[in-house]
């Protein structure tokens, strides 16, 4: 699963933390129990009793961020191979075992992590523990399976290549990151997908899949202490792995706007503007989240449970209400290293990229000069974030994901737990400061997808003669 613009974080586990911490005390009151096993596995456990279900997640601190040219896409391919079986659970057996008790399972690879989960009727969740502890160290990586999966992975990439926005994002990322491995897409470059070998995959697996490089998260309708004991039993006997190689390739400061153009078949043009964003732990993260909410709606905050409509947002009004665009979206996610704050615009038929970019610039200029984010917008962002957190509390799967992501990307699950508090401390001045710092032209990359369809009959049919003129204030 390639999740554009949804990467994550990787600090080493805080080994100096107390052996077991529970934010809310000893009782199973919904607080998170955190511990680090002798094997180095970080464990987070939260009891939730609204429904008889439970989820179990394992996050590995490895994603496309840990890849170098020649093996791009190897983290994602390794994720696929983890479904191919072990001596104890041969291929197909796992799938059948989960499904026949009504469970769901899946996995995802991002820039900063690879994560696996099972969501099950609560009484069956131990199967998830068994499967994950087993495949953490015993996956087979059979040569024939590697061969057959190569075509599946290539097919996945080709399916993505059918989407103009994938092609555009790939070029924008490559332009935005010259040095840092956020440069390439999670699925990897085709050249590498054709040449990565079984040994490459197995070496990657052995290097990165170990309890000392992983976070286990259990959330659901169980006794918290008993769950922790069962996780200890399942994972306690495993050996810590090698120390992961640190990522040294810091992206240098960007000194000037970068632009890319992708041409392709189609009738629709797209604009993708990507600005350098802070990492999850940098001070600017929360003010930029508030700014994202004002510009693009709550989906831009990288929130659990968010993602409603954005028709009252500034950029919707500036671009969609003015009939320049059919839609606008984007935002950012918590990441280990500074990644991107993106604005994606789908142009309306008959509109041209330069006029849409000019309108986008005019709106951003307005934000930076005459119309900064207001106290009312700040209050709205907080109320919307509160609602999103309430919705997210209805799903154990969602909770498991965000606790694990927070631990991995920000170094502690408390990043997620204190998200609303962090947001509440943001002032309008903070937002103005981060807007000026992160939305500057010299630190952004602008990509255009230019459709080459010769069939332009619709353009003449849709002359926007009755449109209000776009009047940049700057």
């Amino acid at each position, binding site marked *: 699963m390639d999740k554009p613009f949804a990467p994550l974080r990787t600090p080493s586990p805080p080994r100096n933390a107390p052996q077991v911490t529970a934010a809310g005390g000893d009782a199973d009151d919904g607080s998170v129990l955190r511990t680090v096993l002798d094997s180095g596995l970080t464990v987070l456990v939260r009891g939730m009793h609204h429904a008889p279900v439970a989820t179990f997640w394992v996050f590995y601190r490895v994603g496309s961020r840990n890849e170098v040219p020649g093996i791009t896409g190897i983290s994602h391919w390794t994720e696929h191979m983890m479904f191919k079986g072990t001596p104890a659970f041969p291929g197909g057996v796992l799938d059948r075992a989960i499904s026949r008790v009504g469970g769901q399972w899946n996995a995802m690879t991002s820039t900063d992590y690879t994560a696996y989960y099972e969501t099950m009727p609560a009484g069956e969740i131990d199967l998830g523990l068994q499967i994950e502890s087993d495949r953490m160290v015993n996956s087979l990586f059979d040569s024939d399976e590697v061969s057959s999966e190569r075509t599946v992975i290539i097919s996945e990439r080709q399916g993505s290549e059918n989407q103009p926005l994938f092609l555009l994002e790939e070029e924008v990322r490559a332009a935005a990151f010259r040095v840092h491995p956020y440069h390439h897409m999670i699925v990897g470059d085709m050249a590498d997908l054709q040449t990565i070998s079984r040994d490459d995959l197995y070496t990657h697996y052995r290097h990165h899949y170990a309890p000392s490089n992983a976070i286990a998260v259990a959330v659901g309708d169980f006794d918290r202490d008993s769950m922790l004991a069962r996780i200890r039993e399942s994972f306690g006997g495993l050996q810590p792995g090698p120390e992961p190689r640190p990522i040294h390739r810091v992206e240098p400061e960007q000194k000037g706007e970068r632009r890319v153009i992708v041409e392709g078949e189609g009738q629709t043009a797209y604009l993708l503007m990507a600005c350098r964003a802070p990492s999850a732990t940098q001070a600017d993260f929360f003010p930029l989240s508030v700014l994202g909410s004002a510009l693009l709606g709550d989906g831009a905050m990288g929130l659990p449970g968010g993602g409603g409509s954005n028709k009252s947002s500034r950029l919707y009004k500036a671009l969609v209400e003015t009939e320049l665009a059919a839609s606008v979206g984007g935002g950012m996610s918590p990441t280990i290293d500074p990644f991107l704050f993106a604005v994606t615009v789908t142009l309306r038929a008959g509109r041209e990229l330069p006029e849409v970019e000019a309108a986008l610039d005019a709106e951003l200029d307005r934000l930076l000069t005459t119309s900064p984010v207001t106290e009312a917008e700040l209050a709205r962002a907080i109320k919307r974030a509160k609602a999103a957190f309430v919705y997210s509390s*209805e799903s154990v799967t969602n909770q498991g994901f965000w606790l694990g992501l927070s631990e991995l990307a920000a170094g502690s699950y408390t990043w997620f737990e204190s998200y609303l508090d962090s947001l509440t401390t943001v002032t309008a001045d903070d937002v103005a400061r981060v807007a000026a710092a992160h939305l500057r032209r010299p630190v952004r990359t602008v990509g255009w997808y230019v459709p080459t369809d010769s069939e332009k009959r619709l353009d003449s049919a849709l002359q926007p003669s009755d449109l209000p003129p776009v009047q940049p204030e700057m």
Partner: protein
Amino acid sequence: MVRSSSEAASIPGPHDIERQLLSSGVVVLMRENHASPSVVIDGSLHMGAVDTPAAKAGLARFTASALLRGAGRRSFAQIFEEIESVGASLSFSAGQHVTEFGGHCLAEDVDLLLDILRDALCAPTFPAEQVEKLRGQIITGLQVRAHDTRYVAGREFGKLAYPTEHPYSRSADGTVDTVSALVREDIADFWRQHCGPRGMIVSVVGDVEASEMIGKLEDRLGLGSLPADFAEQSPQEGLPPATALTAIQEHHVHVPGKTQADIALGSAGPPRAAEDYQHARLANTILGVFGLMGRLGDNVRDRQGLAYYSYSELRGGLGPGPWLVRAGVNPANVSQAIDSIRDEIRRLQTEPVPADELADNKSFLVGSLPVHLETNHGVSATILNMELYGLGLDYLQRYPEIIEEVSADQVQAAAQRYLDPEAHALAVAGPQIENE
């Protein structure tokens, strides 16, 4: 299957679903859940693409989208300013037979959501400039999808699987030509004729008091508060027959600039009300759902490595929705993938499903209920469907037995009745294939 008492108690049923009829005939379903301070409101009404003639294809979907473009005293901007300010959501979407709506909010904001919902249903204003803005967005969406191989394969499949006069042969989205030709009066007339209380269902799940909620809904959707033209509602006409195909109906669509081909293969399936619907559903689960996409996933994806995805879906619904297989493959592998899909259909028709495989699939269908019913959204969608298809409030209590009773012979018979490896619709969209 053994389930814990807490698991059994969590399954919605007559003991905790409140069903009420408003004075207008609207059916209301409620289930309280005070675990978190949020509310989900879903619903459906009999207004869909089947109510539009071919020349006005897309009208139902256009109308549904236009309901929130201005309603009652609120403008489009005010509606979304108010909804989004409190982190709520509300949307309408038209399918073939029904328009569905769905929203959620914090419990403290439920009156706001009900007010806007009421106005959108009963007093939409369809401002001319908003209709034009929406039209532009719909047309851009159609142009985007015209280059989306998966969408194009599905659209072409519909044309091949159903007779031209059948509404299922047309996409509910309409075409650029039909959407361009619609005028505001078409939308207003369509709403007047088809939007109304008859057949309307509203489900409310979450942190509400059922007795209080019924009063709020009666105030807004009861007979006393409905505008006169809202109650005048044309009945939905019956569908022409979806005659069975007697040969393979095949169409390859060249979508330039693409690297992967998408395949849609299948036929008209049973309506939800068909006696053998659950037999077909179990057959479909075995074919392309169970685990990571059933026998198709195992064969086409895992063993042969031909596709990133390969699965089957049984749409069901109020009419004979499609039963089809979908796969995304490299152009060089299209023929092999199609052969393998046909092999799996043939195997389902000619060989009884082994007892252990049948048991696993039944266990999956029953066992996955707690996970599906975890959230307010999951419960709301489920009880809404129970009402729409007349399954009864105790359906989920009877469900394990319904599934358990399905035999291998019935699974095989359903596959034989609805699928045919020698006679089906086959649409492929993607790059030009060399041997064509």
